[in-house]
C-alpha cells in the first residue's frame, strides 16, 4: 500500500483489472464536431456539503489515532503504519524491512503463524501487510462487529512478534521468490531503476530488497530492526467506516497505551544516481521511464504541480495520451503522474512500446513535456479539477481507501484536511497559478531510464 500520496489519477503505470489498461480511457482523431442531439455540457456541480466526521487523538507514547465515520458502510478498515520503512534498511541490508515485516507475521504473543491467519480469515477479516519507503504497515478490512477480534491480533504482531529463528529461512525464501518474480516484470524493473537513480540514497532503494542483501540478513538483523523501528513514536493507526470512535480509542489505549517510547532513529540522506541509464532486457518492447523533481505534497505548490502533470498525462484527454497513443498509435500505455515522499517528490512519466518505435515515443514524450509551459488551456485545467474532485468524493465509498488517505495526510501534513478544504484547494487552482508555477519550475534535469534490447538516444540538454 505505502504512504506515498497520489492525488491525481494516472501516475500508476499499470491499470488494475480494467481491459484497456494504462490510464482511464483514450482516443483522438478529427477536431471538434458540433454535437447534434447532445445537451451542451455544464460543469460538474460538486456537492460540497459532503457530511464528514473526522477524529484524532494522540496517546502519551506518541501513537497517533485517526478516524473517519462513513455511516453508509457496514465495514471498518483499520491500518497500523509503523515507522519501520525500507529507508532504515541500512547498507548491505536492502530488503531488511520487508523480511522483518514478513517475520512479524510468523508468530506473535501466544499465536503461531497459522493461528494469526486462521483467526483473521476465519473472522472474515481481509488482512494485508506491506512495506513502503517510510512505513511498514499492517491492515485489515472487515464487517464492523469484528473489529474487537482484530485489534488484539494486531497488538500481538506489533508488540510481541516472536521472530523465530527457525522461520527465517522460509521467510527469506519467500522474499527471494518475490524478487525473482519482479525480474520478469520489465515495467516494474524500469520504474524501480528510475526511483533508485532519481531520489537521493536511500530514498529510492527498492523496498522489496536486493537478492544479495537479502541472502546476507541474519536473525539478529531482523530482531534489532524490529526493536529499533517498530516503535510507538511515529506510528499512525487509522480507522474508517462504521466506527464507534470512543470505543476504538479505549480499546487501542488498553492494547498499546503502556508501550515504551523509543524513537526510530533518523536516516542520513546521501546523493542521487546518474541521470541516464539503459538496462539491457530481452523483450519485444522497450520501457521508458522519466522523472524530474517537483515539490512534495506538503508544499502548497504541489497542487499546481500535480495539476500540470495531470494535464500532461493524467486522463484520456491528456496531452501524452492524445499525442502518443491516440494520434500516433505508438503504444498501449503512456502516462504521467505525481509521486511524493515527505521531503522529495517527482513527476514520473512512463511508456512501453516495441523497440522499433521506442525512439519516436521518447522524442514525442520529451516534446510534449517541453511544450507544456505556457500552453495550458482553461478547459484542460477544468477537466483535471473535475477528475480529481470526483475521485475524492467517490473515495468515501471505501473504508480501506479512506483509512489509507487520512493516514497519508497525517504523515505528510501533520493534520488531516477535511474533504471540503481539499475540494476548495482544487477550486482555487487556475490557469494563471499553474502557469506561474510552471514558468518558475520548467521541467529540467530529467532522469531517464530505458529498458529493452537497444539503448535510446537522449538529447543532452534534457537531463542538464
Amino acid at each position, binding site marked *: 500500500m505505502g504512504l506515498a500520496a497520489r492525488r491525481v*489519477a494516472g501516475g500508476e503505470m499499470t491499470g488494475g483489472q480494467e*481491459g*484497456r*489498461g494504462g490510464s*482511464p*480511457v*483514450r*482516443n*483522438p*482523431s*478529427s477536431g*471538434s*464536431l458540433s*454535437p447534434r442531439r447532445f*445537451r451542451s*455540457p455544464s460543469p460538474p456541480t*460538486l*456537492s460540497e456539503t*459532503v457530511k464528514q466526521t473526522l477524529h484524532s487523538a494522540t496517546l502519551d507514547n506518541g501513537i497517533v489515532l485517526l478516524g473517519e465515520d462513513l*455511516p*453508509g458502510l*457496514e465495514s471498518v478498515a483499520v491500518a497500523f503504519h509503523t515507522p519501520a520503512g525500507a529507508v532504515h534498511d541500512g547498507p548491505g541490508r536492502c530488503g531488511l524491512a520487508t523480511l522483518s515485516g514478513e517475520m512479524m507475521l510468523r508468530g506473535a504473543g501466544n499465536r503461531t503463524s*497459522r493461528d494469526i491467519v*486462521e483467526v483473521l*480469515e*476465519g473472522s*472474515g477479516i481481509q488482512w494485508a501487510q506491506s512495506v513502503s519507503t517510510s512505513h511498514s504497515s499492517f491492515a485489515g478490512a*472487515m*464487517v464492523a462487529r469484528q473489529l474487537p477480534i482484530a485489534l488484539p491480533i494486531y497488538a500481538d504482531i506489533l508488540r510481541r512478534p516472536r521472530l523465530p529463528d527457525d522461520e527465517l529461512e*522460509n521467510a527469506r*525464501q519467500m522474499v527471494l*521468490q518475490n524478487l*525473482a*518474480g519482479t*525480474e*520478469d*516484470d*520489465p515495467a516494474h524493473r524500469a520504474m524501480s531503476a528510475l526511483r533508485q537513480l532519481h531520489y537521493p540514497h536511500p530514498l529510492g532503494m527498492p523496498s522489496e530488497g536486493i537478492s544479495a542483501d537479502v541472502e546476507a540478513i541474519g536473525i539478529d538483523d531482523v530482531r534489532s530492526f524490529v526493536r529499533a523501528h517498530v516503535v510507538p513514536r511515529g506510528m499512525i493507526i487509522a480507522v474508517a467506516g462504521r466506527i464507534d470512535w470512543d470505543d476504538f480509542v479505549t480499546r487501542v489505549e488498553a492494547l498499546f497505551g503502556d508501550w515504551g517510547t523509543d524513537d526510530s532513529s533518523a536516516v542520513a540522506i546521501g546523493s542521487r544516481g546518474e541521470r541516464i541509464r539503459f538496462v539491457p532486457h530481452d*523483450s519485444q*518492447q522497450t520501457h521508458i521511464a522519466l522523472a524530474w523533481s517537483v515539490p512534495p505534497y506538503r508544499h502548497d505548490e504541489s497542487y499546481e504541480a500535480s495539476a500540470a502533470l495531470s494535464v500532461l498525462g493524467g*486522463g484520456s*484527454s491528456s496531452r501524452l495520451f*492524445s499525442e502518443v497513443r*491516440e494520434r500516433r*498509435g*505508438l503504444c*498501449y500505455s503512456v502516462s504521467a503522474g505525481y509521486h511524493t515522499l515527505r521531503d522529495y517528490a517527482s513527476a514520473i512519466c512512463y511508456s512501453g*512500446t516495441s523497440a522499433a518505435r521506442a525512439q519516436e515515443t521518447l522524442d514525442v514524450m520529451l516534446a510534449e513535456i517541453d511544450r507544456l509551459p505556457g500552453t495550458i488551456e482553461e*478547459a484542460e485545467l*477544468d*477537466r*483535471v479539477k*473535475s*477528475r*480529481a474532485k*470526483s475521485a475524492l*468524493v*467517490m473515495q*468515501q*465509498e471505501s473504508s480501506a481507501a479512506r483509512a489509507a488517505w487520512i493516514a497519508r495526510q497525517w504523515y505528510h501534513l501533520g493534520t488531516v484536511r477535511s474533504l471540503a478544504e481539499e475540494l476548495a484547494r482544487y477550486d482555487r487552482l487556475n490557469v494563471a497559478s499553474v502557469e506561474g508555477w510552471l514558468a518558475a519550475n520548467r521541467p529540467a534535469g530529467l532522469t531517464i531510464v530505458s529498458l529493452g534490447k537497444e539503448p535510446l538516444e537522449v538529447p543532452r540538454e534534457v537531463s542538464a
Partner: protein
Amino acid sequence: MKFLHERLPNGLDVIAEVTDTALSTSIGFFVKTGARDETDAEWGVSHFLEHMVFKGTNDLSADEINRRFDWMGASANAFTSEEDTAYHAAVLPEQQIEATALLARMMRPALREDDFDTEKLVILEEIRMYDDQPPFGADDRCRATFFGHHPLARSVLGTVDSIERMPVEVMRDYHRRRYSPANIVLCATGAVDFEALVNSAREWCGDWEPLAIPPRRAPLDLRASHAPTLELITRPTSTLEYAVKMSRGPAGDDDDRFAAKLLAAILGDTSGSRLYWAMVDTGRAEQASCHHQDFLDAGMFATQLSSDPEDARELLEMIDEVYRAAAEQGLDRREFEQNRNKLAGRWVLLGERPRRRLFDVGPEWAHSGDYRSVADDLRTIENLSLEDVHRVLARWPLHGTGSTVLAGPLPLDPSLETASEAQ
C-alpha cells in the same frame, strides 16, 4: 438496495441496483459478445472493436469523447473477455444523464478506416506487452488445449497475424450483428435515478434496429479436457518458471458453482490455503494458487504456479498430491468454516462498493437474465455445507487430470510433451 428492470420495445434491457447511501453512480453497457463468438477470420475483433468504440461516432470525435468523460470527472473504461464486452463509467450522481448519453452514443461507432489502421498499431503493442509478461503465453496456450474445439479455446487479444490480416469490413459486419439491442444490457448501480436512466435509454437507444441473435452455447468437448496433457513454452531469459493448469469444474448455470469457489479457496487461495502453507509460506514457490472460473456452458479450476525452474516439475506433482489428499481424505470442518467466513467477509466488502457491484449485476443479468443481491449471495454462501464441497470434489476431481502448460527457462523435452495426443 432495490432492483429495477425495464425492457425497451427493441429488446434492450435496462436494469439498476439502487443504493440510497451511495455517493456515486456507475453505468455500464454490457454486450453479450466476446472471443467465443468470433470465427477464425474474426479472431480478436471483439477486443479490437472495444478500442474502436472510443474512436467516435459520425457526429462525435474521439477527442470529444475523451474530453467529455474527463469533464464529467468520470472514471471510464472498458473490457473484453471470452463472453462479454463492457463499457462503463463511474460518475457523481449529477452526471448520470450525461454519462449514459455518451456511452449510449458510443455504442454506434463510425468505425472509420484511418482510425482502424492507427488503432491496429495499439492492439499489436498490447499483444507484445502481454507476450513480454508472465506467464508468457502459458495461459492462452493452456486454454486452447483445455477447450480444444470449444469456442472458449480462443484467446481474447487474437494474434499478431489475425489482427494484421483483419480488414475493417470484418469489424463493421461483426458490430452490426453482435451489437443488436436484444444482445445488450444497460446496467446502473449506486445512486441511480432509474426513471432518468430509462428515459436516456429511450432517447439514445430506442431507434437501434433489433436483429435476431444466433445461440451461443456449444457443448464442451469432453475428450480434449479429460486426458492430462503437458506442454512447454521455452523462454530462456525468464527468471522463474510459470505454470498454468486447467481442469473441469461446474459451469455458470450449475448450483455447485458457489461450493466450487469455496473449494478453490480452501485448496489454493492466495493466503491461508493448503497450497499457500505447503509452498508459498515456505518460500518454495512465488505463487501457488487455485481459483474457479465459470462460463455459460463450461467451468474450470485454474491452478497457477511460479517457482524456480528446477523445482517446477516437483511442485506440480506436489500440487497434484494436495488435490489427491483432499479428494481421498476429505476436508476438515475447521478449514471449511474458516474459508466460508472468509468468502462471506469478502462478499460484504465488495458488495458495499457500487462501483464494484456493476461488474456483478451487469454480467449476471447478461448471462442468466437473473438478479442476485449481495444478501442472496451471502445466504447461499452461509448455507454451504462441508458435504457440498465434498460433492464438488467428487464430481470434478482436480488430481490426475487437466491440461498443463509451463513457460520459462526449462528446455523442451519431447518425451514429456503429451499435448499432441489430446489435439
